[in-house]
């Protein structure tokens, strides 16, 4: 272990961040990780003493939105410094080197520190046309991913594209895009941080957790850290009281919308989406989508482009009746159709019976037939 306990302290001093701010950050991190407040001191100790972890950041079929999220700081915070002072040895968007130099840096990390670096993957990995839809330095994305992620200590799939395929993998998935988990079978220590884009605070928290405890945070079935994806947005939403009270926005800009009522009827997917947006917020806690009066679109859920659309409807339509068909309208008509069909059946049955009874009277009643095959053919 690197015995330079002050790399972070020096860095903080150089940037004019006080120790009070640093300890405040550690407290916030322990809260974000759902740890007791006393964990703040342990976090501070760990961050100060640990060797800078090496990190490589791969971008494949993406919009660089997670990189933007990662770099989004408006003022220098401790989180930025933790991220900045990570030894980011490779990041196409922000690294100074280019071309062969850049690729050499990546190859050097893989060769020198096998099993000793963290790979962050942004974007989905195409498999169509033998991987030709996304190549870097002449190599297919899937080959790079398998080599880099396969030798990493841990892989963080950041953003919905890397975690679940995202937009490129939405139907009809023209490039055969895959998530990291699917593209690199058997990848070790995978952590998915979905969302479009992922919240940089959650990335920092994962790294802080790793630095503090030397292991990865507990994950859910989709390999998402439970501290950030353990609860639905709905359950932590600041508008939840309006949901339980029965107060909903009915139209954009109506009184309820201006009062801050629940966006449930406007198609908010908060009840079916897991993330800690209501607690952490975006842009340094300034606000978040529902706080701005727009429903959640469920961007952190698997297949969200296919599952969560239409974004402004509670439920998707009925297949064959159009994307915007209303389930309830189809349901009412189907039920009414069933009822009408049976009413017609009943009328026919009644008509036949009254006809038969008249015939019975005329023909002095034959014996009642015993059962099926012997039953009279009508």
């Amino acid at each position, binding site marked *: 272990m690197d015995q330079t306990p002050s790399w972070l302290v020096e860095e903080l001093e150089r940037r004019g961040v006080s120790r009070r701010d640093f300890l405040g950050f550690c407290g916030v991190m322990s809260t974000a990780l759902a740890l007791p407040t006393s964990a703040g001191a342990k976090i501070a100790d760990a961050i100060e003493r640990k060797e800078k972890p090496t990190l490589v950041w791969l971008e494949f079929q993406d919009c660089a939105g997670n990189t933007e999220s990662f770099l989004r700081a408006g003022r220098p915070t401790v989180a930025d410094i933790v991220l900045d002072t990570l030894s980011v040895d490779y990041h196409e968007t922000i690294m100074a080197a280019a071309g062969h130099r850049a690729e050499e840096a990546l190859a050097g990390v893989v060769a020198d520190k096998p099993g000793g670096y963290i790979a962050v993957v942004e974007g989905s990995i195409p498999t169509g046309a033998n991987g030709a839809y996304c190549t870097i330095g002449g190599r297919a994305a899937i080959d790079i991913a398998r080599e880099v992620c396969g030798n990493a200590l841990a892989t963080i799939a950041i953003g919905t594209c890397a975690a679940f395929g995202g937009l490129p993998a939405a139907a009809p998935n023209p490039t055969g895009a895959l998530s990291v988990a699917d593209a690199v079978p058997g990848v070790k220590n995978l952590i998915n941080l979905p969302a479009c884009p992922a919240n940089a605070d959650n990335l920092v928290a994962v790294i802080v957790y790793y630095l503090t405890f030397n292991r990865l945070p507990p994950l859910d*079935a989709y390999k998402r850290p439970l501290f950030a994806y353990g609860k639905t947005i709905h359950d932590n939403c600041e508008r939840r009281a309006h*949901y339980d009270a029965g*107060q909903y926005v009915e139209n954009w800009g109506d009184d309820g919308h201006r009062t801050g009522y629940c966006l449930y009827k406007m198609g908010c997917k908060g009840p*079916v989406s897991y993330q800690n947006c209501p607690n952490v917020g975006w842009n340094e806690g300034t606000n978040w989508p529902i706080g701005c009066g727009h429903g959640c679109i469920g961007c952190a859920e*698997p297949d969200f482009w296919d599952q969560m659309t239409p974004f402004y409807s509670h*439920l998707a339509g009925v297949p064959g009746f159009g994307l915007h068909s209303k389930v309830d309208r189809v349901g009412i008509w189907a039920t009414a159709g*069933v009822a009408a069909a049976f009413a017609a059946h009943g009328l026919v049955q009644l008509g036949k019976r009254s006809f038969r009874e008249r015939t019975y009277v005329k023909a002095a009643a034959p014996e009642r*037939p*015993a059962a099926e095959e012997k039953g009279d053919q009508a």
Partner: protein
Amino acid sequence: MKITPRPAPAEEICLAKVYVWELPVRLTHWLIATSIAVLAVTGFFIGNPSLVSPGQAGNQFVMGYTRLVHFYAAIVFTLSVLARITWMFVGNKYSAWDKFIPARRVRRKGLLPTFKFYSFLLRKPPGFVGHNPLAGLTYCFVFLLYLGTICTGLAMYSASAHVDSPLRFFSFLIPIFGGLQSARWIHHVIMWLLLGFAAHHVYSAVLMSTIEANATIESIFSGFKYVPREDLIFSGYRFVDRHTERGG
């Protein structure tokens, strides 16, 4: 229970009083029916809350109470369905599992004639005492719908269940249904399918009660049907007196 058979031919038909639906069958039937009614009304409101409650949010709990009623009705529904499925293996022969899945030949052979009766090709339905084979098969699909709606409901409940709640266990169902949003959709569509089934079910019961004049409607209250002796024999059952029917 007094029954009035339809105007019958001159010769007397020998009717046997048969104890068909035992108490657990009747009880679960009505618990399932009532809970589905409550679940459909509350569920429809949860999916499309059309009332707007005025005033401060803190003084209202409209959606909260609706969901509460929905969850309690769901507990009644789930336990009734499970009890009825259990009774398929411990109850009398009319409630047994093989009345739903046509595993035996006599049931499979009865499918077509029953269909012919419903489509007016036969005047009289084949004389099965309990469920006719087509109805039994329909209920088999209905039970699958029950299981589908129970599982999607548990999956959705698990998402918001308290951290310590044992119902959190059912979160494993969420990926099986392709996520919570599609679980929601399936749950909603099953409600409509069950309402469509209810329309069919009530009509068929009235129809059978009228055509067979065997007190089908009354039987789900009393348990007894009035069946011509030859139908009993046709169904492959040894005729037994009603006093010994329970054991037979």
